[in-house]
């Protein structure tokens, strides 16, 4: 089957970010086609926990994007909440040592100055918030703005709501460029789609897509495992994680990092993350990683020792070297826009990203300064350096 279609904008990637880009672009009046080589939510979206977090973000451009996105998520939830399992459950970050309490509090103070709601929780109040938490933890911080969605449902429902034409099973082999360098659409394995604008929302494969437009964007995979337990009654109320998670998120090592992130789900199972490894696209089971996750989770919630894990799976967070996403127009390829590289925060940051991209597409002034997210901020390595 071969097609030749025309529209205002092609969004490459039917994950959460692609869905948000499609939604806000369509709301801005653009005719949108979404293409993906796989199904809806087939990449990192389908492997994530659906975190909508401010708690793990230090003041800076990413936190600004997170605050914008959380506001937009709340708006979306008013309309699609039950379909996408939106849950404004709040986050609870706990310290495992007294020193960690101090670090956590200082981090929260800085966040508060940037507009985050953060409430210090003394040791004797932790169990009011989370009755099954381990005893004798020295304290924590509650973040009422943190929330959760079921990411695959969110992507699917927002894509549907966008009214965009959806072409799954279409792999983009080339971003088509005119002689003057301007983007004029994409060539897929099943035909061309012509459009003056292309959005790279290909997630972990965003670097690969960029190269198919002849531009350099060093998106790389950072593997994470999630453990899924047997269904339980609601026993864990917040998204609960240990203070060292924040350090891991920002960490730069290729080695395994694992800090416990534990939360219940509407469906019953408890989800346990979050390991981080730079091992390429290797999906094979790492017992070392899942053991570390289990150890961390049972340390925070001892009752989990008796609970059975029924499944584990790996996903690949798309990360860029400075841990910030690439958002906005690419000056190297007029008409090409990027919306990828959100690492482990892509679900949470999707609506803000979608809105900013839509604003850029329509020539509006973006609601946030896009400079920190410039897609051309990474110089292409020279041949010598690559060796």
């Amino acid at each position, binding site marked *: 089957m071969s097609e030749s279609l025309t529209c205002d904008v092609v969004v490459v990637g039917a994950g959460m970010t692609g869905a948000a880009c499609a939604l806000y672009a369509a709301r801005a009046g653009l005719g949108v086609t979404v293409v993906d080589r796989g199904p809806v939510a087939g990449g990192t979206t389908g492997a994530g926990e659906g975190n909508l977090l401010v708690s793990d973000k230090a003041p800076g451009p990413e936190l600004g994007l997170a605050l914008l996105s959380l506001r937009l998520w709340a708006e979306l939830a008013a309309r699609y909440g039950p379909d996408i399992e939106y849950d404004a459950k709040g986050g609870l970050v706990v310290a495992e040592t007294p020193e960690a309490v101090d670090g956590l509090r200082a981090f929260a103070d800085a966040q508060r100055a940037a507009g985050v709601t953060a409430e210090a929780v003394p040791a004797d109040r932790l169990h009011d918030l989370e009755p099954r938490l381990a005893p004798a933890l020295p304290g924590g911080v509650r973040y009422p703005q943190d929330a959760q969605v079921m990411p695959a449902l969110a992507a699917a429902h927002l894509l549907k709501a966008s009214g965009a034409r959806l072409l799954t099973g279409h792999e983009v082999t080339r971003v088509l460029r005119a002689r003057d360098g301007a983007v004029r659409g994409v060539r897929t394995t099943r035909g061309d789609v012509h459009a003056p604008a292309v959005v790279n929302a290909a997630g972990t494969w965003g670097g690969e897509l960029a190269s198919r437009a002849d531009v350099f964007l060093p998106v790389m995979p950072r593997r994470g495992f999630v453990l899924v337990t*047997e*269904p*339980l*009654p609601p*026993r864990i109320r917040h998204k609960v994680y240990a203070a060292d998670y924040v350090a891991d998120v920002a960490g730069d090592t290729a080695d395994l990092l694992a800090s416990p992130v534990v939360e219940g789900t509407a469906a*019953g199972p408890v989800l346990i993350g979050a390991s981080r490894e730079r091992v390429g696209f290797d999906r094979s089971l790492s017992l070392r990683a899942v053991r570390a996750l289990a150890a961390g989770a049972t340390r925070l919630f001892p009752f989990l020792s008796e609970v*059975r894990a029924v499944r584990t799976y790996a996903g690949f967070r798309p990360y860029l070297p400075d841990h910030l996403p690439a958002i906005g127009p690419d000056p190297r390829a007029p008409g090409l826009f990027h919306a990828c590289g959100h690492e482990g925060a892509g679900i949470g940051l999707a609506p803000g990203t979608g809105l900013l991209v839509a604003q850029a597409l329509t020539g509006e002034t973006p609601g946030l300064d896009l400079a920190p997210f410039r897609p051309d901020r990474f110089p292409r390595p020279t041949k010598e350096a690559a060796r």
Partner: protein
Amino acid sequence: MTSPESADAARAFEVTFDGRPVEALPGRTIAAVLWAAGITSWRTTRDGGRPRGVFCGIGVCFDCLVTVNGRPGRRACLVPARPGDVIRTQEGTGHED
């Protein structure tokens, strides 16, 4: 629910199912003990509250989950019955709260 071969009744022991005594023969799984007593369901589902019992009979389907001696989520088709076992219908997840 017939027992096609009569076994040595002297070796029988007792377990309880939802508080009532049920005779068990050594070597039988909890599912077999319950079937022999004419009981075909011992779990209700999380959403619909529907009754369930043995389906695959070989430990694959997890439909026969039951609470044994206070521990939920045990596969009745795999777990051998032991004298004095307290077997209870597992409702929902089987976990309280």
